[in-house]
C-alpha cells in the first residue's frame, strides 16, 4: 500500500493538489459557487490527464471548496456552500466582535483534522462502512431529518414557537415545484418561475446574505470590528481553541465521516448534526450561538470529514455520497475507471493513489487556506462599506445565477432575502426556515417511501418505530429536542429541594410589549396563517402521495400559530420593533437587486451589474466614512464587476446573458 504514496506524491500531482486546493478554496468562498460546480467546471480539463492525477485534482478542488465555504460564513454570515450553514452560528458573532481572523484560522485547523479523519476512514474502513450505511433505509432518513430539525429548539432559545413556525414555513417552501417522487406539480400557481422549486443554495444566499446587506447600508457603523494592529494568523490561539475542543473535534469528525458515508445525506446535514451534538454536550466559556469557537470546530471538522466519508459509497458502491461525488463518479466513468464493488477488491492502484492524494490535498489546505483566509479577512475588514456592499450584492446575483444558470433563481433569492429580513425583525430567525428548507425534501421522501413500504407490508407502525436503527435516531432526536429544558428542570428541582414546598413560583419577568409591537406580530402571524390556509386548500387538488406531507406540515403550522396567538393576546408578548434608522436606504437594496434581475436579460450582465453596483454604492455611502476614497471605490467596484463577469464567462463557462450591450 505504501508504494502508492510514491505514485501519488509525484511533483506533478503535488502541483495539481496545490492548485486544486487553492482554486477550490477561492471558488468555495464565493456564495453560489459550490463544490459541485467547482468540480463540474474542471471535469473536461481532466480528460487529457491520467486518471490518478485527474482524481487528485478533483479531490483537491472538492476539499478546498468545502473549506472555502467557511470564509463567507464567518465574515458575511453567508454560508458559501450549504455545508457551512452551522459555521455562521458562531463564526459571524466572533467576526462581529473582531475575532474574524481567529475564526478563519480555527476553521482551517478544524477542516484539516476533519479532512484527515475522513480520508483515514476512506483508506482503512471503506468497505465495512459502506455496507453499514446500507442499513439506513427511508425511515431512518426520515428520522435523521427530524433529528436535524430538533436543532431548532436550541437555535431559537428566545421563542421556540416562532422557531417552529419558521421551520414549518421552510418545510413548505421545500415542497414547491415538480415533486420528483410523486410526479405532481405543487404550489407553483401556474408560474414557470417556480417550476424548478426553490434551489437551496440560492435560498441560503437570499435568507442569510441579503438581510446582512440591508442592515449594512442602514448605518455608518463598521461591518466588522477592526483590530488596531495586524495580528498575523493567530495560529497559537487557534490551536489552543481547537485543543480545548479535543473531544468535540474528534466526535464531529466521526459524525462527519459517518453521515458522509450515507448516500442520502451529505455535508449540510453532517455539519448540523455535529453542531447540535457539540452544543448539547458542550459547556465552554461562551454560549453556543454567541461566538463559541466550538461551533466552528464542530461544523468545519464535520464537513471536511464528509469529503472522505462521501467517497466511501462513491468508490465502494458506485453510488455518490454527496452531489460533488456524483460529478467525480461521472468523470471516472469517462476516464474508463469503473467504481463499485470490484474496485476495492482488486486493490486497484488508482484508489490508493487517490486516497493518498486526498491526504496530500488536506495537508496542503493548511498553508493555502491560512494564506487565502488571511487575504479574505483583510479584504472584508478593510473595504469601505460603499465598496463592500455593491461587490457582495453583485457576487450574490452572479453566484445565484450560476447555480442553475437561471435568472428566476436570482429573483427568488432576493424575495426570500426580503422575507428573511422582515421575519427577523418579527423575531422569526432565518435558521429554522433554512433547516426546514434543507431537511424538507429528505423528510418528505423518507416519510412517503417508508409509508408506502409499511402500507404494503401491512405494518406502518413497525416500519416507523420498530426498526432498531430508527429507534436509536428517535432517542437521539428526543434528547436533542428536550435538552435545552434540562438546566431549567434541574434548577426547578433544586429550588424545590432547597426552599421546600412553600416556595412560590417566580413571577413572570418583564413588562407586556408595546401595542405597536403586538400589532406587527399579529400581522406576521396572519401572513403565516394565510400561507398555511392556502397550502391546505391547494393540497386538496393533489394526489394523496403528494398531498400528505405539505398538508400535515400546514396543519401543524396553523396549530403553532394558534399557540403563538394565545401568547400574543393573553400574555401580550411580542418582538420589539427593530431600529427604524435608514429604512429608505435599506429598501434600496432589494429594490435595486430586483431591478437588476429585470434589466440584466436586456442590458447584459456587465451593464446591469455596474448599474446595480452604482445604485448600491450610493445607498451605502455615508458622509464622513472615507469620503476621500469615492473615486477609488467606484473604479475598484466597476473593475471587480467587469473581471468577475469575465471570469464567470470565460473560465467557468457560465452562459451569462449578454443582452444588447454587454
Amino acid at each position: 500500500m505504501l508504494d502508492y504514496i510514491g505514485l501519488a506524491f509525484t511533483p506533478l500531482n503535488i502541483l495539481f493538489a496545490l492548485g486544486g486546493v487553492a482554486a477550490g478554496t477561492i471558488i468555495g468562498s464565493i456564495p453560489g459557487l459550490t463544490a459541485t460546480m467547482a468540480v463540474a467546471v474542471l471535469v473536461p480539463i481532466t480528460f487529457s490527464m491520467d486518471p490518478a492525477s485527474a482524481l487528485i485534482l478533483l479531490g483537491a478542488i472538492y476539499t478546498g471548496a468545502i473549506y472555502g465555504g467557511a470564509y463567507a460564513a464567518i465574515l458575511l454570515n453567508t454560508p458559501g456552500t450549504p455545508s457551512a450553514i452551522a459555521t455562521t452560528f458562531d463564526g459571524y458573532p466572533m467576526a462581529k466582535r473582531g475575532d474574524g481572523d481567529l475564526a478563519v484560522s480555527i476553521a482551517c485547523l478544524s477542516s484539516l483534522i476533519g479532512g484527515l479523519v475522513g480520508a483515514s476512514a476512506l483508506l482503512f474502513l471503506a468497505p465495512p462502512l459502506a455496507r453499514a450505511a446500507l442499513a439506513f433505509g427511508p425511515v431512518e432518513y426520515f428520522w435523521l431529518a427530524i433529528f436535524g430539525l430538533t436543532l431548532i429548539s436550541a437555535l431559537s432559545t428566545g421563542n421556540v414557537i416562532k422557531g417552529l413556525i419558521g421551520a414549518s414555513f421552510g418545510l413548505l417552501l421545500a415542497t414547491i415545484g415538480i415533486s420528483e417522487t410523486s410526479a405532481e406539480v405543487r404550489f407553483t400557481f401556474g408560474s414557470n418561475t417556480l417550476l424548478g422549486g426553490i434551489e437551496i443554495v440560492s435560498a441560503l444566499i437570499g435568507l442569510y446574505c441579503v438581510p446582512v446587506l440591508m442592515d449594512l447600508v442602514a448605518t455608518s457603523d463598521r461591518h466588522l470590528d477592526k483590530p488596531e494592529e495586524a495580528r498575523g494568523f493567530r495560529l497559537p490561539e487557534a490551536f489552543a481553541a481547537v485543543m480545548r475542543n479535543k473531544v468535540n473535534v474528534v466526535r464531529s469528525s466521526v459524525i462527519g465521516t459517518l453521515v458522509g458515508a450515507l448516500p442520502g445525506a451529505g455535508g449540510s446535514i453532517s455539519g448540523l448534526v455535529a453542531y447540535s451534538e457539540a452544543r448539547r454536550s458542550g459547556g465552554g466559556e461562551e454560549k453556543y450561538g454567541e461566538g463559541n469557537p466550538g461551533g466552528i470546530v464542530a461544523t468545519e471538522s464535520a464537513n471536511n470529514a464528509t469529503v472522505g466519508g462521501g467517497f466511501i459509497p462513491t468508490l465502494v458502491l458506485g453510488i455518490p455520497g454527496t452531489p460533488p461525488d456524483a460529478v467525480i463518479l461521472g468523470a471516472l466513468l469517462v476516464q474508463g475507471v469503473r467504481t463499485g464493488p470490484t474496485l476495492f477488491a482488486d486493490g486497484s492502484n488508482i484508489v490508493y493513489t487517490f486516497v493518498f492524494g486526498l491526504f496530500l490535498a488536506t495537508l496542503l489546505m493548511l498553508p493555502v487556506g491560512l494564506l487565502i483566509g488571511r487575504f479574505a479577512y483583510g479584504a472584508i475588514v478593510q473595504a469601505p462599506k460603499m465598496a463592500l456592499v455593491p461587490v457582495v450584492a453583485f457576487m450574490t446575483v452572479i453566484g445565484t445565477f450560476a447555480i442553475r444558470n437561471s435568472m428566476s433563481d436570482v429573483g427568488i433569492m432576493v424575495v426570500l432575502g426580503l422575507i428573511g429580513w422582515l421575519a427577523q425583525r418579527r423575531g422569526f430567525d432565518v435558521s429554522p426556515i433554512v433547516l426546514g428548507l434543507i431537511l424538507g425534501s429528505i423528510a418528505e421522501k423518507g416519510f412517503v417511501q417508508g409509508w408506502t413500504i409499511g402500507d404494503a407490508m401491512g405494518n406502518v407502525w413497525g416500519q416507523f418505530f420498530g426498526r432498531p436503527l430508527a429507534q436509536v435516531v428517535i432517542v437521539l432526536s428526543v434528547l436533542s429536542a428536550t435538552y435545552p429544558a434540562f438546566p431549567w428542570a434541574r434548577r426547578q428541582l433544586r429550588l424545590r429541594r432547597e426552599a421546600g414546598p412553600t416556595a412560590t413560583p417566580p413571577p413572570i419577568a418583564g413588562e407586556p410589549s408595546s401595542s405597536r409591537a403586538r400589532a406587527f406580530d399579529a400581522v406576521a402571524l396572519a401572513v403565516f396563517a394565510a400561507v398555511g390556509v392556502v397550502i391546505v386548500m391547494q393540497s386538496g387538488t393533489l394526489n394523496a402521495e403528494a398531498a400528505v406531507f405539505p398538508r400535515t406540515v400546514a396543519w401543524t403550522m396553523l396549530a403553532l400559530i394558534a399557540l403563538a396567538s394565545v401568547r400574543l393576546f393573553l400574555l401580550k408578548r411580542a418582538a420589539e420593533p427593530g431600529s427604524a434608522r435608514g429604512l429608505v436606504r435599506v429598501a434600496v437594496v432589494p429594490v435595486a437587486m430586483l431591478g437588476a434581475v429585470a434589466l440584466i436579460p436586456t442590458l447584459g450582465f456587465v451593464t446591469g451589474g455596474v448599474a446595480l453596483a452604482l445604485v448600491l454604492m450610493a445607498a451605502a455611502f455615508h458622509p464622513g466614512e472615507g469620503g476621500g476614497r469615492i473615486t477609488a471605490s467606484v473604479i475598484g467596484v466597476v473593475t471587480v464587476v467587469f473581471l468577475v463577469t469575465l471570469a464567470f464567462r470565460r473560465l467557468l463557462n457560465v452562459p451569462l446573458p449578454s443582452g444588447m450591450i454587454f
Partner: protein
Amino acid sequence: MFRHTLAAIALGIAALPAAAQDFPTESVNYIIPFGPGGESDITARFQQPHFQELFDEDLVITYKPGGGGAVGWSQLNSLSADGSTIMGINLPHIIVKPKQGNVGFQTEDIVPVHMFHYTPDAIVVRADSEFETIDDLIAAAKENPRQVIFSGSGKGTANHLAQVRFDEMAEIDTTYVAFDGTGSSTTANLGGQVSAQWGYTTVGATQGDEVRLLAVAMEERHPLFPDVPTFAELGYDLVSGAYRGIAVPQDMPEEMRHAVADAIQQINDQDAFRQKMEENGFALLDVAYGEDMDAFMAEQAEVALEAARSGDVIE
C-alpha cells in the same frame, strides 16, 4: 422498428448535400436539463471528445436543472436557433410530464433531432436474493399481492411505467416505491429495504457481482450480460427504458436540423464511442430526424401515455 440502418441516413445526407456544412460552424452549447453527474451528463461527456475530434469545434456542456428537466425544456424554444445551442431530451419525461400539469411546455413544442441511446429497464435483485428467475418473482407476487416491493427512480418515469406494464402483462400486483434517482433506488435495493429494483442495465454494469439482473427490456440481449434473458424471450412484450437524445429550438431550419442529426449520428458511428457506451451498460440507438423520428415518437407516446394512465400518473 426504430432500429435504423446506416443506408437510410446515407440517403438522407445524399438528399441534402449542403447539410454537412451547416453544423457545427462554431462552439456548440450542449444544455443538459439536469444536474451534473447523472446519466444524461455522463453520456454527453462520452460524446464530447468525439465531437471535438470529428468537427474541430468545442462542445460545451452546461446544466439547467430543475423540475426533473421541465425548467430546461420550457426554455428550449426561446434559445438561439442558429446551431449554437442544442439540448438533451429524455423519454418518457417529455411525453408524460406535460400531461401531469402546467410544466411550461408541451410535447409538441420540442423538436427532437436524434435519439442516440437508451438505458433499458431491467429487474435487478441482490446477489443473495431468493429470486433466481423472473418466475420466482412472479410466483412470490401471486402468493403475496403487493408484498413484492420494487424500488425505482421517480414516478411516471421509465422504471415506473415498466413496473405498471409488467404487472399487467404478468397479471401480478406489486408495490412500487419512488426514489429520487437511480443511485438512491439502488442503495435501497442493496440495503434490503425493498425486494427488488426496477432499474436499468447500467445498474448491472456498476454493481457487478453484487446484483443479478432477472431480465432486460431490450429486443436482443445486452452484450454486457449475455446470460440475462430479454423479457421478450420470457414471453413478455416489453422493450422500454429511458431514451435520450438531442433537441433543438423550434426556429431552426430544416436543413440544419438534419445537419445536427447527422453530426450526432457520426459520433454514434465511432467504434470507440459504441464500445464505451456498451461497457457501461447503455444501449445505442440510431433514430435520426425525419420520418423515423416521427414514427418513433408516435409509438413511444402511445405506449407511455397508456401506461401512465393505468399507473394513475395522469388522468
